[in-house]
């Protein structure tokens, strides 16, 4: 039997101590090893590219300020989707983060009592009732924009936390648009084929963003800026736009000529999220705007008229009304295809009753992609998000660089 000491000696004998003459060999062996490690690391790097850093536990919410209610998920996909399962996963994740979620029975009783049918937003009455009856601080509203379980799966989800009480407002808003083949990496090792895994990743991203907000950290992915290719192709900016002012904005549902259902609502949610993130806008909760539209019986034929805008300004004390038209909003299922988004947006200002901003944007998922699908966007949601980010950025850019602003050299013949 060989003793451990003998084994140690044997090991030592396998790697005998180097003599002075072997120093060069040792150095070259070290460099060779390091270079091999580097090559391997570089080969596997694309696998992790593009992935959101999602901690296993994530940030924990501060205690004592976060009893929330999770509303049933609004299905904007236009097709059947596992919304109950998504909601269940969402509640589990919230509880795992230490958030106190209102019990299911209580929520059902409350929804029955106040006859709540619309779950895509919250109006003043319900917000007040939630505060008074069950003492919750916020309402988590999730809107499922797109869901496809065809390989590779795709999911787009927009979430927001709205305060309860007399004057409900959007506290936090974020969204995610993911596809299983967003970052396939080398040998497709990063490919996600299971829709549940993708769902889990999407919810982790959303929940981490929410927890960052609840724990008092920086909100969402505010540092991320849209690429230049997503800039609006045509835009007009009025000289009345004040660069250092925070505007209160009401977002009207967009008029849609696209084939897809609920596109007007989806675009409104994207605008709410991105305008809020710019920091220049105080976005009114879409549920309250919807309530005003219903109360005033506003039927938009092609867009918001000035008379309607006047009523909205008065009822909501808004400075701006955002409206527009969605021309294309296309996602795709499976491997082949590309998302396509085309829309125009207008901001009508209260004081002048004029259009303060107007733009026309269009993009496709493979715009500016030349090699190995680098820079490709796989969901309409992710692309729209960047297109609106670009609008928000250009709105408050240096006025001299704008097109069609006061002092431009255009003149009538």
């Amino acid at each position, binding site marked *: 039997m060989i003793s451990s000491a003998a084994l140690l000696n044997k090991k030592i004998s396998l790697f005998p101590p180097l003599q002075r003459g072997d120093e060069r060999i040792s150095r070259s062996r070290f460099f060779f090893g390091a270079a091999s490690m580097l090559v391997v690391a570089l080969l596997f790097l694309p696998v992790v590219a593009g992935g959101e850093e999602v901690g296993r536990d994530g940030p924990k919410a501060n205690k004592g300020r976060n009893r929330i209610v999770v509303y049933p998920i609004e299905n904007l996909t236009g097709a059947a989707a596992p919304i109950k399962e998504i909601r269940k996963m969402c509640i589990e994740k919230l509880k795992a983060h230490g958030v106190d979620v209102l019990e299911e029975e209580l929520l059902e009783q409350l929804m029955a009592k106040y006859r709540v049918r619309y779950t895509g937003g919250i109006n003043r009455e319900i917000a007040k009732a939630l505060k008074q009856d069950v003492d919750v601080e916020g309402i988590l509203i999730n809107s499922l924009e797109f869901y496809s379980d065809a390989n590779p799966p795709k999911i787009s989800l927009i979430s927001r936390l709205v305060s309860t009480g007399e004057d409900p407002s959007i506290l936090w808003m974020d969204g995610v648009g993911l596809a299983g083949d967003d970052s396939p990496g080398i040998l497709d090792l990063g490919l996600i084929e299971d829709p549940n895994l993708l769902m889990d990743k999407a919810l982790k991203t959303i929940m981490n963003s929410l927890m960052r907000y609840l724990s008092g950290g920086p909100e969402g992915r505010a540092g991320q800026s849209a690429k230049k290719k997503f800039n609006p192709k*045509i835009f007009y900016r009025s000289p009345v736009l004040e660069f250092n002012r925070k505007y209160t904005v009401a977002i009207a549902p967009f008029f849609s000529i696209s084939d897809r259902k609920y596109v007007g609502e989806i675009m409104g949610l994207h605008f709410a999220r991105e305008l809020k993130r710019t920091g220049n806008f105080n976005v009114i909760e879409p549920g309250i705007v919807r309530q005003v539209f219903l109360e005033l019986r506003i039927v938009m*034929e092609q*867009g918001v008229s000035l008379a*309607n805008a006047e009523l909205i300004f008065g009822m909501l004390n808004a400075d701006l009304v955002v*409206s527009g038209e969605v021309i294309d909003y296309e996602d795709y299922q499976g491997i082949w295809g590309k998302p396509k988004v085309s829309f125009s947006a207008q901001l009508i200002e209260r004081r002048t009753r004029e259009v303060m901003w107007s733009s*026309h944007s269009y993009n496709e998922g493979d715009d500016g992609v030349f090699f190995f699908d680098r820079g490709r966007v796989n969901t309409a949601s992710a692309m729209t998000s960047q297109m609106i980010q670009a609008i928000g950025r250009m709105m408050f850019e240096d006025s001299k660089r704008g097109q069609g*602003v006061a002092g*431009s050299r*255009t003149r009538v013949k």
Partner: protein
Amino acid sequence: MKAVTKSDRLKILLLIIILLFLPACAGRRTTYIDPNMDFGAVKSVAVMPFVGLTRDPVVAERVRDVFINKLLATGAVYVLPVGEVARGTARAEISNPSALSPEETIKLGGIIKVQAVIIGTVREYGEVRSGTVSSNVISLSLQMIETQTGKIVWTTASTRGGISIWDRLLGSGGKPMNKITERAVNDLISSLIK
């Protein structure tokens, strides 16, 4: 009588060839501008829904949207929001807003307070084929009507895209629809605004 020399024959042949090709040099006048109209007085306009002569019913709306944004982006005139135009049309009880009579134009101008209205027609939009080659094409025309008199003060037309020699040689499939729409709209606007 002097015999026709070889050089004379050559001159006649050259003249015939020149005469044959002369029409090609003629300018394509697709724009009419009323010489008596003071376009400087036009501060705001309403763009009415365009007529689409294509199979796709939403084409007219697509082109109208691009045109409104382009016109507004020039900064030369203010374009009324489409919702306001729709409200004005309903209030003026106009049954076909794409084809206005002078009386309807005057009435509409009074309601929505604009100096002119623009109506347009999308004559062609989409893919064209010739043999194995395909490309995108757009053809549209516009009219501006003064709301004080109901008179047409500007008409223009533009066609962009189509199958070029390069498309035939390389089979590229032409330029994207969005790009050629923008170019056609630019042509129209540049005929009025410098």
